[in-house]
């Protein structure tokens, strides 16, 4: 059982709100709790009260905690069935008579969804037609874009890559250093990036495709609706929102009349108004 109870989790939320005016109450409680438990263990802290004290006294530790909370363990080409089907959907239903496509990846955490999209677009010869903007919180942008940091690609990620692109060498996109693969950064300069907090920040521009897979699940149901409305406002007419295949699109997508479903299984929705 995690060392942190639901009550502890609520105490931590309360303490952070009091000190930093940030409300983590919009996060799904069990998800937040298991994240905090992992942090407690990684930091070798014995009790949740000690975690609270440290959070209040050490703002750098607090920032790292927030980064951790927004992070996820999404692997390279997560859900390869989606990627197999996405090529056809993209060319036949989304990019029609369009010369340029603007993608948005909000709440980008560990880089692998971005790398997956970039590799996919390159392999399918869409990259030169695409503009990609990623929205990160705080230090994640540095980790993903820096040439000095990399991420260890999991065995599952390697398997997914090989399955989708059996004729492509990993080395085309990654170089190996120690036990980590680093993404070749030549094309990262084409990626626009911006620090952004999904709950309070505004999204300035409008986009044709918003990639938001397995990010909604981190939030409570009512917050999910708020986020969907915000993302909806950032889509152009006929723009497309893509969620994770087990995510719940919610009442706004289903009932507002603003969206139609392009692909129910792959959770792809088009804004028609």
């Amino acid at each position, binding site marked *: *059982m*995690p060392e942190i109870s*639901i009550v502890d989790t609520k105490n931590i939320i309360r303490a952070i709100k009091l000190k930093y005016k940030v409300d983590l109450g919009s996060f*799904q*409680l*069990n*998800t937040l709790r*298991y*994240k905090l438990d*992992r942090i407690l263990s990684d930091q070798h802290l014995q009790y949740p009260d000690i975690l609270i004290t440290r959070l209040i006294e050490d703002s750098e530790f607090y920032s790292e905690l927030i980064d951790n909370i927004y992070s*996820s*363990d*999404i692997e390279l080409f*997560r*859900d*390869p*069935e989606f990627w197999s089907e996405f090529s056809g959907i993209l060319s036949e239903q989304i990019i029609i008579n369009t010369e340029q496509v603007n993608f948005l990846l909000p709440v980008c955490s560990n880089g692998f969804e971005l790398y997956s999209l970039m590799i996919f677009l390159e392999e399918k010869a869409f990259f030169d037609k695409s503009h990609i903007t990623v929205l990160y919180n705080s230090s994640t942008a540095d980790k993903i874009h820096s040439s000095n940091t990399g991420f260890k690609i999991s065995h*599952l990620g390697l*398997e*997914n890559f090989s*399955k989708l692109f059996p004729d492509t060498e990993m080395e085309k996109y990654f170089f190996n250093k120690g036990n980590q693969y680093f993404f070749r950064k030549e094309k990262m300069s084409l990626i626009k990036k911006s620090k952004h907090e999904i709950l309070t920040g505004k999204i300035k521009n409008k986009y044709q495709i918003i990639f938001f897979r*397995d990010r*909604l*699940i*981190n939030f409570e*149901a009512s917050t*999910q609706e708020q986020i969907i409305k915000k993302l909806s406002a950032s889509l152009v007419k006929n723009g497309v929102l893509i969620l*994770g*295949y*087990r*995510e*719940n699109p919610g009442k706004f997508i289903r009932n507002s009349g603003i969206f139609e479903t392009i692909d129910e299984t792959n959770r792809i929705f088009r804004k028609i108004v």
Partner: protein
Amino acid sequence: MSKIIVIGGSAGSFRIVSKILASIPAKYPFPIVVCMHRLRNIRSCFVETLSINSNFRIKEVFDKEKIQASTAYIAPANYHLYINFGKSFSLSVEPPVNHSRPSIDMTMETAAEVYLDEVVGVLLSGANNDGARGMKKIHENGGATLVQDPDTCEISTMPKSCLQLFTPTYVLDVETIIEIILNLDV
């Protein structure tokens, strides 16, 4: 409060879970949650295969879905599955636990917190110790714990890990597990 059955299994358990679900009649009153280790990058055909011989409603969980009676809920590939207060599910992509996502422990622990002594935990064949902690939590909260007899398992590591941690309510063969599940009181 209604009972809930939470079944965990890994290597060697698919056949058993199929058998259990094939034995459940369509109007069985309780929800059943199945958390099985499965290939993380394959999402199709799992539920369809389980449904072939079953009259019971079997579906894969969506995030924030409400838990309803007379349904078997399958943890989707490559997500952790939690049970929330308010009797709904949520999914997460937190790192694997015991190299597993979904983690049987996480599902069982959260079920134990919400359903208390109304949980019936079932742990089947498997090759790691996932589920042992979750079953212990169910036991501590007054729920019933049924462990597949290690001698009847394809791979006995999972049940044995559980038996090393605490003494469950029963250690049984599959047929008796099915009988108990079918005869639970409302």
